[in-house]
């Protein structure tokens, strides 16, 4: 059977629904193909009664389908009704497995072998991907499932869980409370799991609560049992249910198979798209989350726009009024003209498409600064990047003498170090003449780097030269550094990677630009950590100066980047610059002395090692507890709950201890917060003083809680208000200070949102946990200051 449609839309998420709705409204022959038996599967899978947010608030909705913030059930219901009313031609259980052909004559192949021919294809399959299936004979048994909503639904069953990732482990542990659970792991260990899950599952297996088959794989399923291939042969397990959690195939492979190219090999890279969402295959459009717009409203707007474009109508993007508003500070100007000026003046931004630039500008802020205006100050914790469209600024490079400046003119950019290192600003910047600046938040900048390789190159090149100048040779004429800069390279290391090995004869110097490293030496057969080196410092100069083999091993504590400086180039620089040589020599001697001190007190090194293993190296500010002072009164937790709507964001007792130094479960305000990486609502930010916090844009998806390796984010409902302290004290009314008020039953329709420590950024006087500690046991520290041998000696075992 061959059908032909002008537009075939693949995937009925918000993007696809809106496109189909537009096509129906316009009376274009269209077909909407959906893999499942219902529309909008991603939203369908949200937890029941979830409150869905309509972020970004300022963006108007332009679609024939309606959407406003509300409960999941209502939104799905409305869409179903509108599909009906608009007469959308939708086909369910129609998974698309291939798209071939060209504009005007595409062939869309379905999983059941049917084909559909199409003039244009709109791909809106989202990012959820395909759940991997068991793929063994008998897997159609209705009690083989790939999802588990509520482990407490099942009781007294024997359940086989297949898989070894976090989802499988969490399911197995959850089910084991009321059922007999068997877990099947293809490998000999649970290597892919988060540390917390790993210890849970190993403990459960060791204690016999969960039975585990290692190096085993399913061979076949029959109602009531599953046959496994095990190292000794085959094993048949009787069971009431099989739950396979094998992860999902990201859609990229499928998309590439359709001929669409991506911006880079980076897993976060996006498909290459034109201004009108057209992919590298003409006539094939990509919209929605897959195109890099992971919010419902944006996805719906694109559905509308893409259909208009296909019909040959020019659409003013929905964001036009927003940009107009944004550019108002510049006076009476046309949006196009401003965008044109930005693109032609700033090389960093010139390789973006107009579409990308528009979006980039929506996230950015436009400033018109007058001469003398301060743009940011040294030690600020902001991390946006500024591009100069017109005018010039002065960079004050010497904190003691503001008149010592470097001038940057139109087309350059600054502030990129905050972006790269997630640390404080290293210089104060002042407008030199009237200037037009574009300030871009870190997240939008990272998106630019990931999708436009040319921008990354421009940024990296500038960063190398500036960082070498900043950290290594602040008083040297940039001209003199040219050779060093040109031969320098950026190298990346994963946590635990060795950068330098003791005894090696190489002598390049490394400037750590992100992350941090430890220096250790083998003494009496044991690795003794000598020191902790945060970003902004160099290492490896000892071998260079002394012309000796490497005297110590250097390892990355967290994912880090270093600029590798060529030894020959650096040595010739030192020959030309005796002052620099003296300075580096003297720092070298300080380090020698420090190392000798540590070697005589190896226990402090052990603590550094312990803290680094706890991931403290990537923290910018961390709560620690000196257990020799802690009287376990939990006033810190109570203070946190009382100042944050009743939910404590720290768990004092949980977490590891070394000697008397305890690392409670509480946010470390990571240098590169893992929690930020995947927040669709862009609700997680870094405040000017460095606090990582979640604002009220949070839509409660829970990504951040899963992404944080330290388990410090909770999903919680707002708590009812408490009576005042005195009425509790005098009349005993309501729950007292620090008492839990968690409602026993989840309020229907209440919005769960992510909560974590915000370091009490809105409360004068700093972190409440620390101020409420009666004995001074709780302290907040910055690792780069705290991780020194002298500070740590007192905590020894």
């Amino acid at each position, binding site marked *: 059977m061959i059908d032909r449609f002008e537009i075939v839309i693949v995937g009925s998420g918000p993007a696809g629904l809106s496109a189909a709705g537009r096509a129906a409204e316009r009376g274009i022959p269209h077909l909407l193909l959906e893999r499942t038996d219902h529309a909008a599967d991603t939203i369908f899978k949200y937890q029941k009664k979830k409150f869905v947010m309509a972020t970004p608030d300022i963006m108007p909705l332009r679609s024939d389908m309606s959407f406003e913030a509300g409960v999941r059930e209502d939104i799905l219901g409305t869409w179903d009704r509108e599909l009906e009313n608009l007469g959308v031609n939708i086909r369910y259980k129609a998974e698309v497995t291939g798209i071939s052909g060209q504009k005007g004559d595409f062939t869309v192949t379905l999983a059941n072998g049917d084909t559909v021919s199409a003039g244009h294809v709109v791909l809106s399959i989202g990012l959820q991907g395909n759940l991997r299936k068991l793929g063994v004979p008998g897997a159609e048994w209705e009690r083989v499932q790939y999802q588990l909503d509520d482990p407490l639904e099942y009781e007294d069953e024997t359940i086989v869980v297949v898989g070894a990732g976090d989802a499988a482990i969490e399911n197995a542990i959850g089910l084991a409370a009321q059922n007999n659970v068997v877990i099947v792991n293809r490998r000999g260990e649970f290597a892919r799991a988060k540390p917390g899950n790993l210890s849970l599952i190993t403990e459960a297996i060791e*204690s*016999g609560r969960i039975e585990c088959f290692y190096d085993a794989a399913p061979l076949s399923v029959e109602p009531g049992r599953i046959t496994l291939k095990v190292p000794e042969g085959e094993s048949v397990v009787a069971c009431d249910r099989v739950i396979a959690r094998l992860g999902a195939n990201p859609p990229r492979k499928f998309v590439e198979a359709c001929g669409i190219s991506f911006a880079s090999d980076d897993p976060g890279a996006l498909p290459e798209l034109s201004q009108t969402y057209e992919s590298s295959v003409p006539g094939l459009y990509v919209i929605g989350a897959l195109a890099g717009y992971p919010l419902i409203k944006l996805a719906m707007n694109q559905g509308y726009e893409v259909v208009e474009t296909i019909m040959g109508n020019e659409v003013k993007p929905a964001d036009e009024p927003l940009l107009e508003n944004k550019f108002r500070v510049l006076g009476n100007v046309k949006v196009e003209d401003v965008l044109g000026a930005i693109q032609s003046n700033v090389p960093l931004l010139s390789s973006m498409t107009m579409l990308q630039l528009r979006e980039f500008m929506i996230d950015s802020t436009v400033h018109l600064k007058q001469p003398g205006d301060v743009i940011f100050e040294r030690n600020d914790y902001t991390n946006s990047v500024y591009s100069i469209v017109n005018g010039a600024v002065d960079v004050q490079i010497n904190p003691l003498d503001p008149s010592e400046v470097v001038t940057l003119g139109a087309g350059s950019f600054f502030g990129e170090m905050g972006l790269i290192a997630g640390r404080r600003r290293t210089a104060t910047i002042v407008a030199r003449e009237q200037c037009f600046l574009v300030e871009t938040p870190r997240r939008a900048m990272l998106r630019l780097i990931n999708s436009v390789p040319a921008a990354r190159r421009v940024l990296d090149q500038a960063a190398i030269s500036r960082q070498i100048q900043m950290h290594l040779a602040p008083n040297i004429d940039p001209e003199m550094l040219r050779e060093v800069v040109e031969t320098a390279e950026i190298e990346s290391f994963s946590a635990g990677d060795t950068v330098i090995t003791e005894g090696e004869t190489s002598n390049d110097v490394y400037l750590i630009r992100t992350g941090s490293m430890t220096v250790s030496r083998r003494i009496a057969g044991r690795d003794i950590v000598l020191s902790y080196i945060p970003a902004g410092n160099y290492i490896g100069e000892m071998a260079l100066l002394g012309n000796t083999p490497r005297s110590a091993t250097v390892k990355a504590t967290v994912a880090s980047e270093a600029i590798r400086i060529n030894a020959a180039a650096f040595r010739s620089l030192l020959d030309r610059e005796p002052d620099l040589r003296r300075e580096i020599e003297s720092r070298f001697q300080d380090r020698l002395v420090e190392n000798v001190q540590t070697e005589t007190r190896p226990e402090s090194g052990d603590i550094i090692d312990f803290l680094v293993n706890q991931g403290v190296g990537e923290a910018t500010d961390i709560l620690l507890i000196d*257990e020799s002072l802690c009287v376990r009164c939990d006033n810190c937790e*109570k203070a946190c709950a009382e100042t944050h709507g009743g939910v404590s964001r720290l768990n004092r007792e949980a977490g590891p201890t070394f000697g008397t130094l305890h690392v409670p479960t509480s946010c470390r305000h990571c240098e590169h917060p893992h929690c930020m990486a995947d927040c669709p609502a862009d609700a997680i930010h870094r405040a000017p003083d460095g606090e990582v916090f979640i604002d009220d844009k949070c839509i409660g998806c829970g990504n951040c809680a899963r992404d944080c390796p330290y388990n410090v984010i909770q999903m919680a409902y707002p708590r009812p208000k408490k009576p005042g302290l005195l009425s509790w004290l005098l009349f005993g009314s309501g729950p007292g200070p620090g008492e839990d008020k968690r409602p026993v039953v989840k309020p229907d329709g209440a919005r769960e949102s992510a909560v974590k420590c915000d370091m009490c950024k809105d409360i004068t006087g700093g972190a409440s946990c620390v101020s409420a500690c009666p004995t001074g046991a709780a302290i907040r520290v910055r690792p780069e200051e705290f991780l020194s041998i002298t500070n740590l000696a007192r905590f020894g075992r």
Partner: protein
Amino acid sequence: MHEGFLVHSNFKFLKWASALCILSAVAYAIYDPLDVQSGGTWLGYGLGTIGAVLIVWLMWFGIRKRRYGGAFRLRSWLSAHVYLGLSLIVVATLHTGFQLGWNVHTLAYVLMMLVIASGAFGIYAYARYPRMMTENRRGLSLDEFLSQIGDIDRECRQVSANLPDEIASLVLKSSNETRIGGSCWRQLSGRDRKCAAAEAFEELRRVSTNVGPEHGPSVRKLLTLIGKKCSLLATVRRDIQLKALMDIWLHLHVPLSFALLAALTAHIISVFYYW
């Protein structure tokens, strides 16, 4: 960069408190009115007022402790609380002019000294037990110990499934009748003289020699498991004991200080009334 409440700010409040004591003592030595009861003299009024203000302020600590968030450090408040609280020994004693008897005035004085004594024990407890707790726990949390114990119980039940009833009932006794925590006294003692697990262990040892050879390995396994449970229980009970020791004094300190407040009020009213 980080210090406990006792050394806070280089013993600032210890210095203040010492100064207050010395001043009071000097004044008392110099100002030596004849045959008047000391509390009724001007110096007496002065010292009494200082004492009363201090007491009210010391009690305010309970409120301060629960007003969370803000530019203060509870650590420095506690430092002041401790040292200025101790200075009351001198200030109030001088106020009484050593004239104690069986009356409401002396009741207030005695209550005050009891509050101070309990506070002093508190300092001892705060200085000594936290480190002992950490050492006792060996880096694990209480929950982890409890879950280990739970795991042992489960394993014991599995092992004993096909053993004679006599032994199975010992296992049941160990897993169902073991109590952790309990009355205040039991918490403070740090042990349970009638610990079901320990009793089960002893009896198991007794009967282990008479079981059939086919059960030998299982019984030996049970012995190691329950033995391990006993040692875990000892750690947990020690933990609870230390925590209880660290808390118990506060359960005296606070009620006594309310009693003190009442007696003090009575004292002050009565002096003005009868004077």
